[in-house]
């Protein structure tokens, strides 16, 4: 019994230290975002010798949303003669492929679909195959449900004028916010993750994450780090870390907003976060040692931030272990002091996913000028609870840690009104 108590006590201390580090990190980021000097390289450049650009839109059964995305891309103000839009269809079984053929016919030379029926399934593999056919300078990647603004392409390409920049990430803003408790909570979480967390890491020259959905990569940088890892479950995190280790800079553009459709059902959200957790943990296993041993080339702060970024999806497990140790100590007659228990309680109000703490979420919403929705803050606890269960299950699965697991398309369910059966030009004027 004494041994168990000793282990529980030490375990709780370790958990508290880890949780405190993450909480303080988020607090530091919040202060930086509120009071710091902001870095937004070249975001206002509108006249330039723009490089040749390919926008890839990976798609797998996206008939409900792909039209809106392509229409929005076609009306962007990037020079037409330097822009190619390449929807990458990987084994869709719905009407996606017909829609792409229709667009290719309507916009020849501008939309060049890449239709894929064989090879390793999954986003990374599909992108690797599609990109191999293009020799342009910059590759941007948008998810099929994303609707970019007119200036977005230029904003995302502009940072590449700095030759050290390997990847760029824009801000994701949910489009379907007011539909349910879940969408409202996800809006809060996204705000905290991007408006504060990503921007602070950008300001501090740490490791902003290339998220793989509203962003892009320099072809030379991609080739330098060996291209896409086709067996990666989270190709964005995987690429971010490899770029950082290789010395490339990853840039986050907070003003480059792109609208996405967040999951509208809890089941869909659970699948999404499990996928993220598996991918993140896979990247943690693959790169944390390389990152930590690369001290000679990278600043210490960047190394530490990279390691903490990789460990984000282990934190829910740490929190669960902390609660377990607390229960053991309670029954054994050694209840943790109020200080440790309070840290544990406060940590329970940190959301998983972008892992923004409650004050970080509030700061982000305030910066966004959306005050009323901050009143939803206590309900983040419910989102956290679901995420913890989901991340816990994902983190304990073999796919999180083992090498070479076959990957497949695991996509988020779309809920947008279907327009797949509308003929011609989608019934639009």
């Amino acid at each position: 019994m004494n041994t168990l108590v000793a282990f529980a006590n030490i375990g709780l201390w370790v958990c508290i230290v880890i949780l405190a580090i993450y909480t303080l990190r988020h607090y530091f980021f919040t202060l930086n975002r509120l009071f710091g000097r902001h870095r937004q390289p070249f975001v206002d450049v509108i006249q330039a010798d723009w490089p040749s650009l390919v926008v890839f839109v990976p798609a797998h059964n996206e008939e409900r949303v792909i039209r809106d995305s392509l229409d929005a891309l076609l009306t962007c103000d990037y020079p037409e003669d330097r822009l190619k839009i390449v929807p990458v269809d990987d084994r869709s079984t719905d009407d996606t492929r017909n829609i792409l053929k229709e667009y290719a016919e309507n916009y020849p030379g501008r939309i060049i679909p890449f239709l894929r029926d064989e090879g390793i399934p999954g986003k990374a593999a599909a992108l690797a195959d599609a990109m191999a056919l293009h020799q342009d300078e910059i590759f941007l990647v948008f998810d099929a449900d994303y609707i970019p603004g007119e200036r977005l392409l230029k904003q995302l390409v502009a940072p590449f004028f700095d030759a050290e920049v390997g990847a760029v990430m824009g801000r994701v803003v949910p489009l379907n916010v007011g539909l349910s408790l879940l969408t409202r909570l996800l809006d809060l979480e996204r705000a905290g993750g991007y408006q504060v967390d990503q921007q602070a890491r950008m300001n501090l020259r740490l490791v902003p994450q290339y998220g793989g959905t509203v962003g892009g990569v320099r072809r030379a940088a991609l080739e330098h780090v060996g291209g896409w890892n086709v067996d990666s479950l989270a190709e964005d995190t995987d690429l971010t870390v490899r770029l950082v280790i290789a010395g490339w800079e990853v840039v986050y553009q907070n003003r480059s907003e792109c609208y996405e459709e967040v999951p509208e059902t809890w089941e869909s959200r659970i699948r999404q976060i499990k996928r993220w957790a598996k991918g993140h943990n896979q990247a943690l296993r693959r790169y944390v040692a390389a990152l930590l041993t690369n001290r000679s080339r990278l600043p210490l702060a960047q190394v530490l931030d990279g390691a903490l970024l990789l460990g984000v999806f282990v934190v829910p497990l740490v929190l669960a272990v902390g609660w377990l140790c607390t229960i053991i100590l309670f029954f054994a007659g050694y209840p943790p002091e109020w200080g440790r228990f309070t840290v544990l309680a406060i940590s329970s109000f940190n959301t998983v996913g972008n892992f923004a703490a409650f004050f970080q979420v509030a700061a982000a919403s305030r910066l966004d000028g959306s005050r009323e929705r901050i009143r939803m803050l206590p309900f983040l606890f419910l989102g956290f609870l679901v995420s913890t269960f989901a991340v816990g299950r994902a983190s304990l699965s073999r796919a999180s840690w083992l090498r070479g697991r076959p990957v497949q398309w695991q996509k988020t369910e779309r809920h947008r009104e279907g327009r797949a059966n509308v003929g011609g030009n989608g019934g639009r004027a």
Partner: protein
Amino acid sequence: MIGLEISWTLLVDLFVLPMMFAVAMFALLDPLMGAWREFFNAIREPLGLPGVVSTRVFEVGPLGVAIPYFTAGSFWPEPRDLQTGWLVTVVLFAVSFFLKDRWLPFGYLLRFLSAIQLTAQLWFTFAAPPFTYDLASYTAGLLICGVVILVLSPFLVAFTFHIFDFLLWQKVAMGTLLLAHLSVLLPLQAAVHTWVIHRASLLAMPMLFLVFGVLLDVFVYVALYGWGMSWRSGGVLDAVERRPPTMPARYPEGRPRPTPTPQSVRAITPIGSQIIRALGYGSMLVRRLGLGGRP
């Protein structure tokens, strides 16, 4: 990009204001404890709690605070209590699987609660009396923890709320609201815990301690904080009004759809549009150079 500036007034709000609150709270602890004692005395009999309302001195350096608490005891769960507990645990767990779709998070909450209660069930099924804690010391400990939270919470408010551009009265109001709320909540919380554990045996203590103790206090703070952060400050952060879209997901209204490439161009080749554009540039160049001639 919008942000705030560090100023002397901010530093005062950040360090001096919470210190004043903490000192004021510390000075008010005696009358507050007196009020708690009166409250406990008033509800002890209606709640059917035996014993008396006693005090325990909590020492902070040379100073001491006399914290009131109930001396009522509880008992080791009897077989009937355990059976009821098992039934409740199983029902909670089973019901959680019927809560789906938008009720799913509440299903997970029930599973979490049933897991906590399961630990208590197992402990009291296999362990032998006496339990490590008696009800009186548990209640006293809960209130001592509450008093510490009361004194230190102004600093939590300062570091999470005062950093924003709220007006001074709003910052004072937030701190006052939190302290007033906790001053009422903590004795009520202690009274409910005592009553439940006294009536339902020690079997209820783990759940109350782990879920409805400090965690509940933090929840209250987060809720109040969320409300306070939604106040209009009139400062820099109110200047922006980026209202994220709240309509159901669809292509943004008012944004033009692209115009398809004309059929005549499509009919030439996939690169027809580029050829047409090159011809257009060429004819423009010819006109500029004055080589086109006039009809």
